[in-house]
C-alpha cells in the first residue's frame, strides 16, 4: 500500500502563509507579549489554510494506513478515510440551521481550525514576517488529526538565537465575542501544565519528536525542561475587540518569563465567514492532496 501526498501543494500553501501573514507586537502589556496576527483573511491565505489543514489530516491518514498495513495486515480506502476525517473535523457543509450544529461549530470546528492556524504559524516561524517564537523550530508535533485525540494541542521544540533549546506549547481558542474569557481559560491550561498535570502527555509528545531532532538536541531537552525554558503560545481568534494591552494577572503568575508568554491575537473582520471559508477551501482541496 502506498499513499502519495501532494507535498508540493502543501509546501506552496505554507509558503503563502509565510509570505502573507504578518505577526507584530501590539502594545506593551506588563504580563506578556501581545502579538497581532494579520493577513489570515485574504482569500489566497484562506485557501492555503484549507489546503494546509487537509494536508495535516492526510498525513495522519497516511500514518494510520502505514500502521494498519504493518500491524493489522490490512488496508483501507485512503481518500474515503480522508474525506471522512475532513467531514468529522470541519463538517460536510456550512449548514448551521440547528443549535446542535452551531454548538459543534463553535466548540469543535472553529477551535480546531484556530489550532491549524497556530500550527502553520509555528511551521513557518523564522521565515515569516515576524514570528510567533524568537527562534527556529526544530521539531513540531503534527496537528491533532482525530476528533477525540487526547494530549496537548501544539508542542514544538525551537532553538533561540543563542542556540538554546526551548519548548513551545500552544493552546488555541476561537470565539466571536468572548476573547478575554477564552484567554483566561487558556491561562488556566498553562497553570495546569505547570502543575505537572499534563506531563505524561508532554513526555509522550516529546518522544514522538525523537526522529526529528538531532542527538545534541535530544541530550539537551531534559535540561531545558528543568530550567523552565518554555514558551507559551496562547492563540485567540476572535471578532469583537477586547483590551489586548492591559496586564493579565493570570498570565503574570505563570513561571515562564514574560517574553515567553506570547499571546497570538487573530482578530477577524467576519468571524463566522472566515471559518466557513477555510472549511470550504479544505473540503475542496481533498482531491488535490491525495495522489
Amino acid at each position, binding site marked *: 500500500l502506498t499513499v502519495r501526498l501532494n507535498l508540493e501543494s502543501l509546501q506552496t500553501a505554507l509558503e503563502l502563509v509565510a509570505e502573507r501573514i504578518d505577526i507584530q507586537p501590539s502594545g506593551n502589556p506588563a504580563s506578556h507579549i501581545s502579538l497581532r496576527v494579520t493577513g489570515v483573511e485574504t482569500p489566497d491565505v484562506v485557501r492555503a489554510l484549507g489546503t494546509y489543514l487537509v494536508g495535516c489530516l492526510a498525513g495522519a491518514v497516511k*500514518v494510520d494506513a502505514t500502521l494498519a498495513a504493518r500491524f493489522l495486515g490490512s488496508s483501507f480506502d485512503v481518500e474515503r478515510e480522508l474525506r471522512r476525517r475532513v467531514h468529522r473535523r470541519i463538517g460536510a457543509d456550512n449548514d448551521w440551521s440547528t443549535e446542535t450544529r452551531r454548538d459543534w461549530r463553535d466548540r469543535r470546528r472553529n477551535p480546531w481550525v484556530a489550532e491549524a492556524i497556530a500550527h502553520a504559524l509555528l511551521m513557518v516561524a523564522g521565515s515569516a514576517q515576524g514570528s510567533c517564537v524568537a527562534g527556529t523550530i526544530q521539531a513540531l508535533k503534527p496537528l491533532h488529526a482525530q476528533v477525540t485525540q487526547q494530549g496537548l494541542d501544539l508542542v514544538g521544540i525551537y532553538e533561540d538565537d543563542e542556540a538554546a533549546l526551548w519548548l513551545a506549547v500552544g493552546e488555541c481558542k476561537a470565539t466571536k465575542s468572548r476573547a478575554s474569557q477564552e484567554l483566561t481559560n487558556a491561562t488556566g491550561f498553562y497553570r495546569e501544565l505547570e502543575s*505537572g498535570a499534563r506531563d505524561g502527555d508532554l513526555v509522550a509528545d516529546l518522544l514522538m519528536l525523537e526522529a526529528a531532532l538531532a*542527538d545534541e538536541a535530544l541530550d539537551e531537552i531534559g535540561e531545558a525542561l528543568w530550567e523552565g525554558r518554555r514558551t507559551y503560545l496562547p492563540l485567540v481568534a476572535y471578532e469583537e475587540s477586547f483590551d489586548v494591552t492591559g496586564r493579565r494577572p493570570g498570565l503574570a503568575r505563570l513561571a515562564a518569563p514574560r517574553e515567553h508568554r506570547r499571546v497570538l491575537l487573530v482578530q477577524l473582520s467576519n468571524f463566522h465567514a472566515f471559518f466557513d471559508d477555510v472549511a470550504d477551501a479544505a473540503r475542496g482541496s481533498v482531491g488535490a492532496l491525495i495522489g
Partner: protein
Amino acid sequence: MFNRGITRLLEALPRFGELDQARIRRLLSNAYADALDLSESTAGDEDHATELARLALALETHAVLAPSASADTVRACAFVAAEALSLADDLRDEAEPARPGPWIDARRYRRLEAGLLYLIAGYDANAAVVARKVRVLGALPDDMSGTTRYVSARAEDAVAQLRSVLMMRRGGRLAARRPPANAAPAARVRADLWRRLADAARRHTLWLRFADSEADGSARADLDELLEPLLAERASAYGDIALLARLLAMACDETGGRALRSLEDPDGGGHFGAYLEERATERPVMWPATQRYVGECLRGAGWHAAVAVPTGAGKSGVAELAVAHELDRGWALYLAPTNALVAQIQRDLEAALGGYPGFTVQGFLGGPEMTGAAEEVLPRAFDATVLVMTPEKCTLALRQAPEAFERLGLCVVDECHLIGERGTRGVLTELVVAHVLTLAPEARLLLLSALVANPEDLTAWLQTVTGQPAAAIREPWRPTRTLRTVLGFDRERFAPIYGAAEEERASAGRTRQAASAPAALLAGLQGAWQGSEPGDFMLVDTNISVPFEARPGSFYYSSNDALSAAAASLAREGHRVLAFIPRNRHWAFSVGARIDLADLANPLDAEIESQLVLAEYELGVGSKVRELLSRGVAVHTSALLEGERRASELAFVRNTAPLMLATGTMAQGLNLPATAVVIAGTQVGHDPTLTPAEQRERAKLQLLNAVGRAGRPQHATRSLAIVVPERPLIFDAAASPHEALAQVPFLAEEDAAGNVHSRLVTLIDRALRDDERTADMTIEELAAFAVLPLDVPDVDAGEVIGKTFGAWARNASNRESPAVIAGSLEKLGRRFLGERPRWLAEAAYLAGLTVEQTLGLHDGFLAVEAEVDKTEIAEWVDAALRAMSAMRINALAGIIAPETVRSTRCAAIFAPGTPDDTVRDAWQVLREATALWLSGATYDDIAALVAGPEARGRDERHQRAALPRVIRVANDGFGYGLTRAVGGLLALHEVGITASEEHDRWTLTPIEKRTLELAPLAVRRGCGDLSSLGWSRFARLPRRLSHLAAGVMPIPANASDEETAALVANRTELLVTEAIQEDWDITASDAAALRAWKQIVAE
C-alpha cells in the same frame, strides 16, 4: 532519607544548571514530609508539588530521550523521576476514580510511568508498591459501546499486563476481542497497539518466570518493532502508547539483566535449575547484592565472600541463592546468632527450597550442650541439605560429628559482625568458623552482615587461611528510604501552651501542672544528619499531642509518654510502627499498658489465639500479651514465652496489631518490617562488663540498627524514624540541628556499620608470649578454652587457631605460629588440670565447658554418685546441680550467669561473703524449682517458689514482677546453663569409659546410659521423665502438654526411640480427638491447650 546507595546512584545524574544532589534530596524529603500528613497544614505542599513535577518531567525526558546518557545516568534519572512522580501522587490525596477509555486516564498513566521508571532504576520493590495503586477496570460501563468499548477494553488489558510487570507477577491470558465491523482505521490501530503492548508485557513476565512454552524472550524485540514505525512516522496520535512501550522496553532490558533465568545452571538442570524456576515465580529478579555475588563468585573467581549490605537490602536473598547453588554439590551450613533467627531462617528456606524433591532444610534449635538425643546429633550423610543452627549449637556438631563436615560445600555466617562481639559469643563464632575451615577445607564461606564496615579485612583473612580467592561485596543499595527526625516542640506553638499551663500552675499554687502540646519533628533532609545548609533541615508540624509537666521556669516530659503518643498517632495514620524502648526491656509492657488502639486492632486469628492459649497454659495465669494485643499493641522482649513472642510477631506481621513495642536488641535481624520507627531515648540497657566507650558504641549500634528497621520494601518504600530524646527539645523556626545532635549524635552516622575485630587477639598475643598467668583470664579467653580442642586426640587445635581471624590479624597464620599458640594454650589448660587425668580435657572439649568447670562437675558428681538413681532423668539433673554447688563462683558463672537468678530466692548463690547456710538454702530453692520445671509445673507455681508465695497468681510483667524473673530462670538457667552442666556429666561418662583408668566407674547400664544421654535435652524441654520427653521429642508437644500426654497415655520407660516414635505417632490423633471429646481425665484448660496445639500444627 537517602543512604550511600542513593548517593552513589545520584552521582550519575546529568548536570542541569544548578540542580545538584543536595537539592534533589531536599526536594524529595520535603515532599515526603508533606505527604506524611501529620498535621492539618498544607502550606508549601503546592510549591513542592510543582517543583517535583518539573524535576520528574526533566529527568524522565532525559532518561527516555538522551542518546548520550550512560546506563548509570538513565538509572539515576529514572529513580529520581519515579520518586518525584510517586511523591507527587501521594501529595494529591484526593481519591480519583479510574476512568476507562481508549486513553488511560492521567493518574493511572502516571502511576504506570512511575512504576516502569522504578524498574528501569532497578527498584522493583518500589515498582510493586506503585502498582498496587493502579486499578484495573474489570468491567467497563454498560453505556460504553461499539468501537470505544473495544479500544477501551484493549487499553485495560494493557493496564493489567503492565501492572503485572510492575509486580513481577504472571499476567493473565489476553482475552480474544473482535473489533466492531464499523470500527475506524485509527481505532483499530490504537486497539492493536494496546494489544501488542499488553502482549509484550505479559510475555516478559512469563519469560522472567521460565514459562518458555508461552514466552520466548522476544518481548523486547516486539516492542522495538512496535516503536520503530510509530517514531519514524511521528505517529503522535499514539504517543501515549509509544511512551509506555519505550519505558517497558527499557524496563525489560533492566529486569532481564537481573533475571534469575539469566543464571546459567552449572549442571544443565539439577536442584539449582529447579530452584531458579520455582523462585522466579515469586521473585524473578535479583537485587544488587545477589547480582554482585553471582558476578563475583558463582561466575567470577571468588570462592568465599563477605557481603556487607544495609538492613533490608537482600542479604538473605544472597544466602538463599548461594545455598541453592551449593546443594547440587554437597550440604550447606547456615549459622545464625539466635534461636529465634534460626527458626525464622528455617521457615524462610523451607518456603524457598523445601518444595523440591531431595532438598531438606533442617533447623537445629537449642544450645551447645553435649547430648545423646538422636535428633540433636548431625546425621553422617546429608547431601542436598541445609542445616540451620546457632554457632553455639554448631560447636556441639563440630565436637560430636566432625566427619560430617567433610562434604560441607558452603558455610553461611549470618550477622557475621558477631565475630567482633564482646563476651563469649564473638570468640565462639570465630572459633566455629575456623574449625569449619579446618574440617572442610573445600567449603565456601559466605559472611553476611549489615553492620560490617571492613568486609575487605574478612576476605583477606579467608583468602590467606584457605588459599582461595574471596570477594568483598560492599553494596549500599537499599530499596527503602527513611526520613530521620527528632521529636520536640516548635517554640512558636509551644510557648503559649506552656505559658497557659504555667499560669494555671502558679495560680493553683502547685509545683507542677500537667498539659499537652503538639509535637514538631526536626527532619534531616539529606539522609544522615550531615548537611550544613539551612535547607538541609526542616521543621514538620504534627498533631501528635505530647503530655508534659509545666514547672516553674521549666518543663518536663517522659520520653516513654512521648513515644506512646507518637507511636499511637502514626498507627492511626495507617503506619505499621515499631517502637523501641532500648533502655529497659520491661518498659515495653508498662508503656503498652498506656496505649489503646483497640479500634485499629483486628480480632486475633486462630493461630495467634492458639499461641496465646498455649502460652497461658504454660504460665498458669493470663498472658499480658493477650491484653496488649486486644488493644492493638504487640510486644517483643526477652521476657516472653515462645508462644507469646510468636503471637506478637504474627499479630504485627498480619496487622492485627499495628504497633509493636520492642527492646533495643530483640527485634534485630527478625523480619518485622515497619513503615515507621519510634525510639524512646538514646540510652540502652546497661552492661556492666563494658567500658564507657564500648557502652557508647553499643548504644550507637543498637539505635542505628533500630532506625534501620524502618522500611517495608513490598509495602511502603519511604519510611519515617522518630527519635524521642530523653530531654525535651525546643525547635526554632531556623530548624538548626545542633541542639538535637548534641542529644542524638548517632543520627549523623550513615548506618550502624563498624570495623569488626577479632576478640581472640589478646589470647593469641598471650599465647605467643607464652604467658602462663591464669588468674586474670578474661571471659573471652575462658570461652575459647571451652571450645578449643586442646589435648584432644585427632584434632589439631593449632590448625584451628591458625585459621582464625585473630591469627590473621596478628600475622600468625603462618606455619609455625599456630602450633606455638596451641602449645601455649595447652600448657595453660594443663595448669588447670594439674595432676588430674588428661582425659578430662577431652571431656571438657566434648561438653563445651572449661577444664575447671569439668573438673568441678567430675569431683562434685563423684561425691554424690552413690545417692543418684541413674535411671531417673531428674536424678541426673539434681546430681549436676549438686556438683555445681561445689564449684568456684567464677567457674559457676561461666555456666549460669549470675544475672539469671538475680532478684530471686536463688540470688545468694552468687553473692560473695554470704553465710553458707544461706547459700545452701538458695541452692535448695534452685533444686526445687528445677524439679518443678521438670515435672511440668506452671510458671506461676515456679514463681511462687523462686519469688515467694506472694507471687502466685500475679500476671504482671513490669520490672519488679515475678514472672519475668521466672522466665529468665527457665530460659537462661534451665534452658542454657543447666543443660550444659548435665551435658558435662554425659561427656565425662562418654570419655571416661574409654579413656579413664577407672573405666568401670564410668560404665552405665543401658537404661542408665539412655537416661543420661537424653537428660540434657530433657532439661531444656522441661520433661523430667522419659515418657513426657518421648511426647515432647516425637510429637513436638510443648512442655506441659507433654506431661499431660504422658499422664493419660504413658510411654514405657524401656521403649527405644523407634518404639517411642511409633507409639507417639499412633496415639497423637487419639490425644487431640478422643482426649478432648470424650473428656478423659483432663481439665478444661488441658483440653483448650490441646485444641490450640492442634490448630498450630494444622497451620
